[in-house]
């Protein structure tokens, strides 16, 4: 995370966009502009509200989730609270799940959890931001609940036969976050080192948290 190339995937080294920010069809642009301008004229939202909402969403993601996970890894009391009263526990990180409810599920030696929303794209947005495209697509939504082990394999996650898989189907009111397993051999690691290990996919439960040497393998 802290190397010279720590920039988003859409930029080249000279700072130019690799790809122009694409616009949708003109019809969609017309509808969006119309709805947005009407909402502003009616005083429902302001341009500033929209800018701030985009900024807030951009600030969510992997690194925010990683802070919660590492806190749970390093503080047993916090972990207990996170698993039993998730909404309250994440409030410490400035996250307000309301009006939704958060349920954090723990990966152990016996159980692997993964999260899907078969009906749409419900996701722990206040923590992880906008879901990845594959999470919203039919293939993941359809298959995660029928053949989770095969789906996990497509993410490079091979589970031993004896391990139980629990698939959590999110809905409008209830969102799930996976507490991944802390990799062995990280007992002496600092909080910053640990946070850098935690990936978005490990908190959706489609992969485990791996040590850099394992990830390269």
């Amino acid at each position: 995370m802290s190397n010279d190339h720590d920039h988003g995937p859409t930029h080249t080294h000279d700072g130019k966009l690799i790809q122009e920010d694409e616009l949708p069809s003109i019809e969609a642009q017309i509808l969006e502009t119309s709805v947005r301008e009407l909402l502003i004229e009616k005083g429902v939202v302001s341009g500033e509200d929209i800018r701030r909402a985009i900024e807030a969403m951009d600030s969510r993601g992997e690194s925010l989730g990683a802070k919660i996970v590492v806190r749970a890894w390093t503080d047993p009391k916090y972990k207990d609270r996170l698993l039993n009263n998730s909404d309250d526990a994440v409030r410490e990180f400035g996250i307000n799940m309301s009006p939704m409810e958060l349920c954090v599920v723990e990966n152990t030696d016996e159980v692997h959890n993964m999260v899907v929303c078969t009906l749409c794209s419900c996701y722990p947005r206040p923590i992880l931001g906008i879901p990845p495209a594959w999470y919203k697509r039919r293939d993941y939504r359809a298959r995660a609940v029928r053949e989770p082990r095969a789906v996990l394999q497509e993410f490079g996650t091979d589970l031993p036969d004896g391990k139980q898989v629990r698939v959590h189907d999110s809905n409008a009111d209830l969102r799930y976050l996976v507490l991944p397993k802390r990799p062995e051999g990280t007992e002496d690691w600092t909080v910053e080192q640990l946070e850098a290990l935690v990936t978005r996919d490990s908190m959706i439960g489609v992969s485990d948290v791996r040590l850099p040497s394992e990830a390269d393998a």
Partner: protein
Amino acid sequence: MRGPQDYGGLPAGPINPVKHEHVPTHWEKTVDALMMLIFDQRRQLARVDESRRMQEAFGEDYHKYPYYERWLQAVSWLMLEKSVFTQEELDAKQVEVRARLEAERDEK
């Protein structure tokens, strides 16, 4: 009865997570922001299940629209349903915006 959005357990293809790792565009983020703002605690103009009801109202057309275009349509229908603006206001606005955007496009 299974709705068009109800995919759980149906046969489907490979996930292809690397291919389908799309970074949201600014336009998509704007639509996202509009939805989040009408949901938020200050406004409470709609709830998530209402947005889903609107998207499911697409019926078989559900699959024809990109994700954020479905969201946009849901925001628009919800605001009409809740009389935040009227169909007449939306129609008039769209005529005006169309002229403006098409003129901008033709200048390029």
